[in-house]
């Protein structure tokens, strides 16, 4: 700046001293702010970010939220602080009609900006992809045959969406269907989400699971609950008049408790379990239309 401060400071009114070195000043402000703010965000905001640590994928999302937010903080500060700085430092003196310096660009700065943003973006994208393939995206619907499957035994549970309720079917327990969802803790669960009619979306918030329920499609999501607790189930895709009311609670329980519960369900629903269609990955029940 020294090279250009006094001479290139455009048309200073008579007697005004050469302007301060805005660049150095602003960069200092920004760097200091970022150095302070970014760790604070990572350390204090990170842990309280959604959706919590009730399952492996949920915990993974908390990490991703933290990383992305930390990376975004300096960018946010850059523009916001710059806006404030500009508003304070670069105002037109009242009554005056001064012109700024006729600057039309700066090759070096533009190149630098492009390279930096490319690097930042590629970092983010690579990180996201890496985490996705690591299985932290497994909580989101991954289609009928996901690329990455968790190893080891899995408890298959079918989520059947219809206007306007979710019901749950346990193929390994005689294909019993239940009104509520209960899962054993520390067990890898394989959710098969499908719909009998329109598009719904199965959202188990605390578990970090969201998978669209499409007609005639099997949409698989994996989750391993790690805490015994109650979680919320929402529909996250507009599906008609009671979309908002498609709300329920599910429970993560201990292994024995789950065994007791499922046995009770099998006994209670025995009469209708007989009537259910054979377990399959999708259902296209009649009637499609009534009276036509």
């Amino acid at each position: 700046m020294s090279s250009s401060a006094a001479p290139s400071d455009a048309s200073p009114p008579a007697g005004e001293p050469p302007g301060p070195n805005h660049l150095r000043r602003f960069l200092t402000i920004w760097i200091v702010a970022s150095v302070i703010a970014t760790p604070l965000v990572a350390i204090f905001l990170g842990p309280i970010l959604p959706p919590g640590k009730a399952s492996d994928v949920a915990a993974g999302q908390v990490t991703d939220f933290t990383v992305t937010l930390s990376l975004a903080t300096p960018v946010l500060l850059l523009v916001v602080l710059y806006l404030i700085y500009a508003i304070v430092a670069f105002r037109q003196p009242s009554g005056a009609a001064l012109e700024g310096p006729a600057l039309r660009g700066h090759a070096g700065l533009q190149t630098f900006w492009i390279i930096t943003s490319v690097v930042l973006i590629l970092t983010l994208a690579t990180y996201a992809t890496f985490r996705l393939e690591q299985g932290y995206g497994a909580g989101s619907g991954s289609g009928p045959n996901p690329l990455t499957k968790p190893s080891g035994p899995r408890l298959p549970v079918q989520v059947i969406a219809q206007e306007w309720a979710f019901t749950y079917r346990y193929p390994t327990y005689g294909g019993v269907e239940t009104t509520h969802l209960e899962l054993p803790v520390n067990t890898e669960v394989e959710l098969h989400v499908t719909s009998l009619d329109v598009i719904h979306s199965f959202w188990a918030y605390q578990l970090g699971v969201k998978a669209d329920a499409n007609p005639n499609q099997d949409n698989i999501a994996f989750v391993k609950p790690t805490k015994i607790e109650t979680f919320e189930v929402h529909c996250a895709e507009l599906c008609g008049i009671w979309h908002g009311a498609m709300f329920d609670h599910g429970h993560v329980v201990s292994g024995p408790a789950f065994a007791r519960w499922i046995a009770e369900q099998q006994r209670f629903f025995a009469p209708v379990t007989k009537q259910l269609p054979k377990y399959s990955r999708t259902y296209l029940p009649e009637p499609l239309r009534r009276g036509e």
Partner: protein
Amino acid sequence: MTGTAGKLAAVLTAVAVVAALIALYITQWATAVPATVVATPTPGAIAAGPTSHLVLQTDAAVGPQESPSHPDWVGYLVLRGHQWVRSTIYQVPAHSLVHVTIYQFDSDTGLRNPFLAKVQGTSGGVELVDGKPLNHIEAEEASHTFVVPSLGVFAPLPGVPEEAKNQCEFGPCDPATMAHRTIELTFRTGKKGRYRWQCFVPCAAGTYFGFGGPMQTLGYMDGYIDVV
């Protein structure tokens, strides 16, 4: 427009017209819902016995008298006093037993999800179908259901057999003369609040999955249980 007064008058008139239009829009369309029907308190309520009573009927077509715009839509009617009205918003007391009698005039359609043929959440886990207690019905016999998911109440309603004499064509139907099934159930209301109830049988003729039209419109096959 000459003179400030003239301009003012014109602007105020315009504002008044717009305001009137908005008022019409809000009152006549946005907030237009069926009237709430209060369940009749049971005279001399016995301890733990039913404290209020709802009498409903389901019709294959609610008829021009109940719904001039959609006479052919399937729907529920409720008995208010001695008169059938088309409303699906029912008010019941909190933490109390509600006894529901449903005269079922529609023929069977069958459930898309047979699982819902199970009776749940009623006292004794059963419903009385023509006086006979059942804890489930045959899925393909279902004509409608009365379900309040948030209260855990699931009551499937078997349909009138095709071969039955003098079927009711459109509502309001007369239980005294016309072929019907009578379903009775009792359930306990929870804490105060507004709960949705709906039918789970694909009974909306001509719409995909039988879930369009009346199945997605308040006052036909969907409504609220207002627990106060």
